[in-house]
């Protein structure tokens, strides 16, 4: 069964790859996968990317920029997807009460077309000198679903239940665990029990996401962000204590849950994956390291687990003639620690080191398969400036900006109007210390309001290097 599924999936990728190849002959297209868990800054990154290219912003390290003559948004290629509302997001960012985009609730797509001056006689005369960059924006929670494609209901149940017994999840999961203990997988199916279990399970997942714990590995994603599926029977399932090897006949609770899980994977997860992630050319993985560091060791460990599982789903590796025809692979991946503007630049190296450790498995696999990888501390829109505070004969490297209303540091609560210089604490000199608990309570990253535009551009940190790595070679 699993093997058949694999063959089918392979066929699906090959067919779509062939179609892409044919389309790419006329209009060269680059599918940029902006991946990241929820609140990692995908939407902001997309806005900043489009804005910087369309407005010709200062991008000193993006070498190809000199050859780009025009950049503009075009109607997106897939008619069944809504358009990424770039203008609305931008208006919100630049309005008087500047605010970050709200969390993404549904999938949307955008096509950025770059016209450039090709190099070489052949390219100048026979190529269009146009590159379409297709980007999909989606709720980051949904990304957590991808590992489910490789798991049966039995495996998933066992893993989820085992994880919920460990702190800090155990206390949060109390209500759900109690209900779970009252259920018997072999008993006749009861819709009300199933609904109740799903509700409690969803509440548990939602609680795990709060700032104080900030956990990441919380599948299934649609439970947290149902999109247009709110209330659908596809979402009324939850893990059960199943004994492996035992057969659950039709009509039992176990069979009902397993069936729903399988239809969730087949009707929700697979179409999402094959529609948007199976044929990426380049990938940027945005990781919100700072929220995890804020919450502590458990959150960092959980982030590592989630990223490793998600990254295992992508097709990485150098491209060959065959992969050009039948489904290209991702040949460049950039792991970016976002919101680097919440730290002084002297700490960026340490942040990158911690990120390297977090994505170690994924990047080893990528490197082994021949894909190029890079790690960067990134701020697509830089909300702060840097400052030095002299205190008690010591210079504290700080960042200054307007913290968001309601953010707390020590005994100061910010009102969202006054400017403040923040010293967020020292990052550990070795990355492993982020996991061993020595940092507990030593760090506090405060969220800032979006910056005002400067010369009609957003300030940024290393957005230029990111673009150069992801797109630069396509303009030669």
């Amino acid at each position, binding site marked *: 069964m699993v093997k058949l599924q694999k063959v089918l999936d392979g066929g699906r990728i090959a067919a779509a790859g062939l179609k892409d190849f044919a389309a790419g002959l006329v209009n060269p297209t680059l599918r940029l996968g902006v991946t990241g868990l929820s609140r990692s800054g995908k939407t902001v990154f997309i806005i900043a990317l489009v804005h910087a290219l369309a407005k010709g912003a*200062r991008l*000193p*390290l993006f*070498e190809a920029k000199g050859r780009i003559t025009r950049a503009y948004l075009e109607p997106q290629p897939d008619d069944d997807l809504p358009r990424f509302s770039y203008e609305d997001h931008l208006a919100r960012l630049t309005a008087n009460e500047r605010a970050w985009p709200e969390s993404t609730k549904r999938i949307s797509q955008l096509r950025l077309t770059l016209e450039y001056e090709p190099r070489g006689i052949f390219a100048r005369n026979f190529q269009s000198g146009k590159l379409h960059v297709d980007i999909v924006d989606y709720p980051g929670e949904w990304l957590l679903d991808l590992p489910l494609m490789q798991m049966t209901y039995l495996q998933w149940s066992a893993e989820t239940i085992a994880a919920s017994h460990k702190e800090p999840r155990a206390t949060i999961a109390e209500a759900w665990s109690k209900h779970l203990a009252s259920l018997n997988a072999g008993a006749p199916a009861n819709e009300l029990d199933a609904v109740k279990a799903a509700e409690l399970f969803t509440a548990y997942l939602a609680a795990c996401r709060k700032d104080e714990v900030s956990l990441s590995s919380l599948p299934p994603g649609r439970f947290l962000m149902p999109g247009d599926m709110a209330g659908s029977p596809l979402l009324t399932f939850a893990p059960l204590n199943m004994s492996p090897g035992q057969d659950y006949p039709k009509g039992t609770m176990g069979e009902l849950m397993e069936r729903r899980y399988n239809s969730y994977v087949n009707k929700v997860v697979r179409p999402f994956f094959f529609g948007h992630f199976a044929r990426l050319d380049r990938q940027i993985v945005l990781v919100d390291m700072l929220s995890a560091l804020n919450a502590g060791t458990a959150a960092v460990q959980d982030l590592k687990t989630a990223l490793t599982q998600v990254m295992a789903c992508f097709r990485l590796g150098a491209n060959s003639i065959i992969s050009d025809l039948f489904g290209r692979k991702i040949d460049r991946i950039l792991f970016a620690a976002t919101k680097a503007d919440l730290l002084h*630049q002297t700490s*960026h190296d340490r942040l990158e080191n911690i990120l390297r450790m977090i994505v170690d498995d994924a990047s080893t696999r990528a490197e082994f398969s021949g894909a190029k990888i*890079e790690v960067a501390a990134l701020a697509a829109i*830089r909300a702060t*400036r*840097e*400052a*030095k*505070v*002299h*205190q*008690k004969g010591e210079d*504290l490297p*700080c960042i*200054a900006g307007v*913290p968001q209303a309601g953010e707390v*540091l*020590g005994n*100061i609560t*910010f009102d969202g109007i*006054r*400017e*403040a*210089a*923040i*010293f*967020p*604490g*020292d990052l*550990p*000199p070795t990355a492993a210390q982020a996991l061993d608990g020595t*940092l507990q309570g*030593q*760090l*506090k990253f*405060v969220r800032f309001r979006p910056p005002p535009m*400067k*010369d009609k551009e957003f300030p940024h*940190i*290393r957005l*230029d*290097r990111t673009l150069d790595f992801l797109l630069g070679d396509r303009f030669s």
Partner: protein
Amino acid sequence: MTDSYRKPTAFVLDDEEKNKPKPRAKPSIEFEIENSKGELVALPDIPIGARRKFRWGFILVSALGALVSLWAGFAITTLVEDFFARSRMLGWLTLGVAALAALAALAIIFREIWGLLRLKRIEYIQLLSTRAINLDEKTASDETIASLQSLYANRHDTKWGMTSFNDHGNDIMDPRDRVKLFDRLVLKSLDEESHRIIARRSRRVTLLTTVTPAAALDILFVAAQNLRMLRELAELYGGRPSTLSTLKLARMVVSHLAVTGGLALSDNLIQHVVGKGVLGRLSARFGEGAVNGIMTSRIGLAARDVCRPIPQPDSKKESLGSLLRELVRFGETPPTP
């Protein structure tokens, strides 16, 4: 940073305090002024010569030099004295001329020393920038940029690049990227000029070799042209070419060529075809000229490696091929790259 972690802290700026003139209440906050692993590089290979501890030849030359200067000093002094004995006027005149000569000699010595020091400094910058690029070191990068900025401070051909580089002075970027940005914005225009220099000298060598009547003469021409090319290249990248530093540079270039295998097999093949093949058949002299031109191009490229303050990764180095194409097209107006 110390072993103990520093606690997170916040300093709220009140609006009144922001408008207050200095001095500010403690703790004072100082804002940064706001204005508007990649490829590795290698230092040019120059073998370090074994330092001989004691050389009789050196002593002989120094002793003879000292004798000659003593004799010259004595001769000049007696000359001046003689003239004073004859007439006061003539005496003063001779003394003035002698003083002028001494001044010129001093100036030359200073220029030579300055040239040698400059050569050393560029070597040091090469070392620094290699460190900055390969190890991504902030201190090395800052020092590289500062030295290069003072090196190119008062030149009009780098002004535009320097200005656009300074525009990005406050952007946050990695040390490696900053050096590479300087390379791209400032040194790239110099690279184009150096390409023109090498191409021009190579063409001239080819032409001179072809039209020189005597075989012995063209050796002299080629050597002279090459030395002038070295001077031009050194000056372009910020050196102060003087006699001694040009000779030292020439030695460095030759040893760089020897180490990097400047006489690569593929190039030999080109020489064979060009020198003894089609061109050689047409005219033996012209074939020789082409070979000399190729050699000059190669020396020029090696000299550029030695003079360029930021070493380039191999992939970005210009190949001999693009120069050769220009060499064969000579007579046309030189194309601007």
